[in-house]
């Protein structure tokens, strides 16, 4: 039997790019290409470095979430041969091969290509996998099958180089109906919702949605466009993004920030002018053919029709008598062997395809009622990787175990919830679909779930404790999509118990029950059990160590605020008190103030001595606070050691310190950098690399500018900013990135950072003179 | 005696006057020379009287009026 053609016909440029991978890798291994240049190449090729193992992950795009069995068998094979043997289904319908040695990534790339798969555009500032409702084509309420559109659009966009060099990643999704959004199209950069009008096909279009640390629902771009316009719509939005996306700040580069910045009206009008321009210019390429998705679906006569009781794992389809079988994976993980078996089952029993879902599950659709029983039997034989009906649907991000930005171990919480529910003998379908993110960024999409948990850290009795914000009521859809609202925060350890108690509510009103329970669980029991200070799956106390400053650091904001609050309270106590209380309160205020900003650097100390040392290193020596503060700190230590009788006299200085700390905190931007300028310029601190204050508001886009004019322009721009401040320079790969940073260094300026940003680089340089 | 004239070591019978040195060094147009003796610019009137001793440094600075 010959394999069917891949659903997505990879454009020639993608095939060429993949064929060139081995050569590029070899040149990197031979030292001909710099680390950073290779990183900039490999990430848009879909190859990511994993944080802990030093090995690599290859993210394979499954167009519209679809794969032929032979393609999944290839993924399984490659995962077994070169990876850890456990492929992973993502929330964007990709499938990832983990733990691949760098030298083997070329084998993986080529092996995928042979099966008509590709990781090209799997990462970086590219057009990412174009997703669709996982049940599209089978969904009873769908307007029409959107999968051919998703695939055609992918073929169109992947053919252009510009699709791999956008301001930031660009995600497109197709929902097969308006009233439900299985594709999460309402919270993506560009979302198409299928609808019909007088028998004609068309779309409602939303754009500028997104999750992450600043989630928002997309705005309406088109109430109705004919289906033939779908490429023009996407091209226009892509162009708008390309022109107006803020390439200077990757934390505010996504399309939703363009929308925030311009406002919905201007955003729409820019979109319309791009559409207008396209009408006169025409598209950059032909619209790929819309090919119906082939189906090997057998006539229902193959087996006698039987009555089937729908369940979360058995979903009726639009064609009566056919069912979609859901394979509930725990957090998207499935062993290679089981994946290969799933492929066999799909080949023999369904429409011949396997679908990956946004819930990190797999679906086999097109199963005639008469075969549902045997398919379920076979699925049950697949072992623990595929959970039975008694498991809740939980999605979780990678979490702090692999994500440098993460705070809490979201996957461990998911497992703890599953275990707790099993212990309590609660059927999985009693629980609402749950989504968990290990930090306020919503890689686990916790904002859009019926029930979502977002990790954060809090200080309890002076120690850090992992916490989760609890979100309820997230709804997706073309109309009235809304993000979940936080109803409070509870310690990580309390989440499973609270959830079980809420679900056990007899009326099934888990959400109302949860609101009633949250206050009770928000406060740890007294005395606080040690495990409350440990995250799930860990036996050491929760800490921020190793958490780099990054947008996820937003999760520590509460702690900083609390410390500043403590400092203020101690200060006002000192103001009212007489000695010796005056001195002890002043001391407390100084310590709290000194400690407040340290979490922004990933520091967390309990001992006063360590706090003061870290404060000195991070803030005092680096010029962020008045140098006279040192005198205050010395006096505080002297008082503490009993070497001086009083500290209360320095109340005013303590007040000024708190003032400054608060001002610095208020100036922190989304990248956890201070926007205020230093009190003292400090320039020779080699650890300055990741310091707050290296934020560059100043940006110079010199892509496309050749040597030495790029250096000339960058230097002129640097001379235009005050000494001590930083400039971001965007540079091309090759000669520019080799020369410009070196030239700045030669001339005594500090190269703070060079970072790959898609196919170009961002150089951050600090003016020293 | 050994002296330095325009950076070059010169051996002469000496001591002698600047005027005599100009002759010995075959300076063609002595009217067109200003003399720095041990770092000090001499007036023309001093040429006849100023003695040059062993180890002295003498620079002849030439007038150059051209420029067009």
């Amino acid at each position, binding site marked *: 039997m010959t394999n069917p053609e891949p659903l997505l016909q990879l454009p020639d440029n993608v095939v060429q790019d993949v064929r060139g991978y081995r050569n590029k890798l070899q040149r990197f291994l031979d030292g001909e290409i710099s680390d950073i240049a290779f990183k900039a190449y490999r990430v848009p090729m879909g190859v990511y470095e994993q944080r802990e193992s030093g090995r690599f992950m290859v993210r394979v795009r499954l167009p519209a979430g679809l794969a032929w069995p032979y393609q999944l068998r290839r993924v399984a094979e490659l995962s077994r041969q070169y990876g850890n043997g456990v492929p992973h289904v993502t929330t964007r319908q990709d499938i990832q091969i983990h733990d691949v040695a760098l030298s083997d990534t070329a084998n993986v790339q080529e092996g995928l290509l042979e099966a008509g798969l590709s990781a090209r555009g799997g990462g970086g500032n590219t057009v990412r996998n174009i997703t669709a409702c996982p049940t599209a084509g089978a969904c009873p309420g769908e307007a029409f099958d959107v999968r051919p559109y998703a695939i055609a659009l992918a073929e169109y966009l992947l053919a252009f180089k510009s699709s791999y060099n956008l301001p930031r990643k660009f995600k497109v999704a197709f929902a097969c109906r308006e009233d439900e959004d299985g594709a999460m199209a309402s919270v993506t950069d560009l979302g198409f919702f299928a609808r019909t009008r007088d028998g004609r096909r068309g779309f409602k279009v939303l754009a500028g949605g997104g999750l992450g640390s600043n989630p928002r629902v997309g705005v309406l771009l088109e109430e109705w466009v004919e289906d033939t316009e779908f490429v023009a719509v996407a091209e226009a939005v892509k162009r708008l993004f390309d022109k107006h996306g803020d390439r200077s700040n990757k934390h505010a580069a996504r399309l939703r920030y363009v929308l925030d910045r311009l406002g919905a009206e201007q955003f729409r009008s820019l979109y319309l002018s791009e559409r207008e321009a396209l009408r006169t210019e025409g598209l950059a390429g032909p619209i790929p053919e819309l090919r119906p998705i082939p189906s090997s679906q057998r006539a229902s006569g193959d087996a006698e029709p039987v009555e089937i009781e729908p369940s979360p794992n058995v979903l009726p389809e639009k064609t009566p008598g056919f069912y979609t079988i859901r394979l509930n994976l725990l957090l998207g993980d499935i062993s290679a062997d089981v994946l290969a078996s799933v492929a066999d089952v799909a080949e023999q029993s369904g429409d011949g395809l396997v679908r990956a879902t946004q819930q990190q599950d797999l679906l086999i659709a097109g199963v005639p009622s008469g075969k549902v029983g045997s398919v379920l039997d076979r699925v049950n034989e697949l072992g623990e990787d595929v959970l039975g009906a008694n498991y809740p649907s939980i999605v979780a991000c990678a979490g702090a175990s692999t994500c440098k930005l993460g705070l809490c171990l979201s996957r461990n919480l998911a497992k703890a919830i599953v275990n707790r529910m099993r212990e309590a003998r609660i059927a999985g379908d009693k629980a609402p679909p749950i989504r968990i993110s290990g930090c306020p960024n919503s890689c686990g999409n916790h904002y859009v779930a019926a029930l979502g948990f977002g990790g954060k850290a809090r200080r309890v009795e002076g120690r850090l404790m992992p916490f989760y914000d609890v979100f309820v009521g997230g709804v997706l859809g073309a109309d009235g999509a809304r993000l979940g609202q936080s109803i409070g925060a509870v310690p990580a350890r309390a989440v499973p118990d609270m959830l079980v108690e809420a679900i056990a509510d007899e009326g099934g009103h888990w959400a109302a029950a949860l609101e009633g329970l949250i206050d009770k669980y928000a406060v740890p029991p007294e005395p606080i059990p040690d495990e409350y200070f440990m995250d799930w799956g860990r036996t050491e106390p929760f800490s921020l160590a190793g958490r780099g400053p990054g947008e996820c650091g937003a999760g520590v904001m509460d702690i900083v605020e609390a410390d500043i609050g403590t400092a203020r309270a101690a200060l006002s106590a000192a103001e009212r008190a007489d000695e010796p209380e005056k001195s002890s309160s002043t001391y407390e205020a100084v310590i709290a103030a000194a400690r407040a900003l340290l979490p922004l650097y990933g520091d967390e100390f309990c001992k006063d001595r360590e706090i003061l040392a870290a404060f000195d290193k991070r803030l005092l020596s680096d010029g962020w606070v008045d140098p006279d503060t040192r005198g205050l700190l010395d006096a505080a230590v002297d008082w503490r050691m009993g070497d001086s009788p009083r500290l209360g006299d320095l109340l005013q200085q303590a007040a000024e310190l708190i003032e400054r700390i608060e001002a610095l905190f208020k100036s922190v931007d989304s990248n956890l950098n201070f926007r205020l300028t230093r009190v003292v310029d400090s320039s020779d601190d080699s650890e300055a690399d990741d310091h707050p204050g290296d934020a560059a508001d100043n940006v110079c886009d010199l892509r496309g500018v050749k040597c030495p004019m790029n250096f000339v322009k960058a230097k*002129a721009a640097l001379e235009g900013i005050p000494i001590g401040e930083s400039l971001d320079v965007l540079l091309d790969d090759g000669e520019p990135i080799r020369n410009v940073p070196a030239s700045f260094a030669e001339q005594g300026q500090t190269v703070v950072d060079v970072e790959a940003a898609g196919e170009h680089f961002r150089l951050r340089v600090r003016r020293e003179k | 005696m050994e002296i330095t004239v325009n950076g070059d070591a010169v051996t002469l019978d000496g001591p002698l006057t600047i005027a005599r040195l100009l002759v010995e060094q075959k300076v063609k147009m002595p009217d067109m020379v*200003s003399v*720095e003796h041990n*770092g000090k610019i001499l*007036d023309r009137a001093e040429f006849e009287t100023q003695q040059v001793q062993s180890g002295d440094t003498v620079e002849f*600075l030439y007038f*150059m*009026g*051209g420029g*067009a």
Partner: protein
Amino acid sequence: MNLTDEQLERYSRHIILEQVGATGQEKLLSGKVLIIGAGGLGAPAGLYLAAAGVGTIGVIDSDSVELSNLQRQVIHHTPDVGTPKVESAAAKMRAINPDVTVRTYFDRAGPDNLVSLMSEYDFVIDGTDNFSSKYLINDAAWFARKFFSHAGILRFSGQLITVHPGQSACYRCLFPDPPEPGAVPSCSQAGVLGVLGGVIGTLQATEAIKYLLGEGELLTDALLTYDASSMEFRKVTVRRNPRCRLCGPSPTITSLEQQDQAVCDLSGSCKC
């Protein structure tokens, strides 16, 4: 001042330099240099200063271009013969660099105009061809307290020195006694290798640029001499002359009008 893209490109090789940069280029663009004499020394100086983007360049000269000038005065071209040198020079400088404002003075530099003229500039280049002018410029610069570059060329030799009036040795410190009128051969009598003006005039422009940038060490208290036959540069250290009639502690020249009788007369007898 913000450099335009065109300026960034035009001056890119300056901006790259650590000692110049955009800031230095901006200093040049706001700098003002007066060139006295658009001849063998003034020609290359004017061309390079214009190319360098010195924002305002003044040129004073009362002569017109002659065929015999073209062997060395590279700012003037064959079709310019007969036109005032200041016009010819200004046209070339503007053509090189439209950023530059060229002010022309079709006039003779004299005791009546020189101090006030110098006061409008930051730096002065002496590109004259006769002793009377060289002493005059030295003295005027003293009264105007202007930095200037003195230079002379003759046959196969040239020399220059930069003067910081009141702080470093002046021309009179080195040459206290002007030669008798007619005793010194001027270039018309002795001839000059054409490239000499290029070498020395370019060094003068270098001093002007360094001064405007505030970079490097100026050629003060040192006479740099160049001998093209032996290809030798020598730097003769000099110092202020305590008996200097102009800048010494007991000056005898207290106004510009006094100094003329000491040198050949200013009407132009020793001109080329």
